[in-house]
């Protein structure tokens, strides 16, 4: 893979991992609020 392709892959993976972490945190937060109510 050329260097450009590696950059694209790293950027995409970073965005994906960030999105997954965000969704996990949001899911946990919403679950806590649902239990509270």
């Amino acid at each position, binding site marked *: *893979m050329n260097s450009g392709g590696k950059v694209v*892959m790293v950027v*995409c993976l970073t965005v*994906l991992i960030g999105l*997954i972490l965000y*969704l996990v945190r949001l899911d946990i937060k*919403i679950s806590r*609020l649902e239990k509270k*109510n």
Partner: protein
Amino acid sequence: MRSYWWKILAVLLMLYTFTAGFLTPVPDLANLHQSIRNFYFHVPMWTAMMVLFSISVVNAVLFLRKPNPRLDVLSAAFARTGVVFSLLGLGTGMIWAKYSWRAYWSNDPKQVGAAIAILIYLAYGVLRQSIGDQDKRARVSAVYNIFAYCILFPTLFILPRMVQSLHPGGLGNEGNPALGGDSLDPIMARVFFPAMLGWSLLGLWIGTLQARYQLLKEKLLQA
């Protein structure tokens, strides 16, 4: 909505798609070259959109049979999430088109059909905002949802196959790589089908979070 096995599966499939999608070998086709890797993102995004809109319309139909505010919330949440995925699909398609067809927009029948479908669902959002009464809003938007879903088939699947198109499957260019068979390279199929499932599960996760948040918000407002 609170079970998590399918969320873990979504994460694993997405990680697999994003790594294998860039690392596995792909056929070196004229015009496409390495951009064919977009096939693992662009097409599954549209697949996820169809899954989400299908869930939305099922909830709309169930609401019309037996009005329940929860069904209306689910219907709206999945429609909204479907629109997000459709915009992602359109965006990735335009980027791919710039590379392979030399223009972001070529008035290709499937591009135009997709734009029409997205506008119809955006109008669904506008419709919901314009009606103040909750019951009336739920009933009117459920009916509109069914109409919008039905329009997807001629705009995205039927008409683009009946005319000449830059997309595969158009007149004179029959075949559909998305349905496998001889049209799809076997190595690509090993990434493509898990990608379709992964993107769909991701969309489902985001849709359920939207719905749960809305239901919670309404419960707190009523309290």
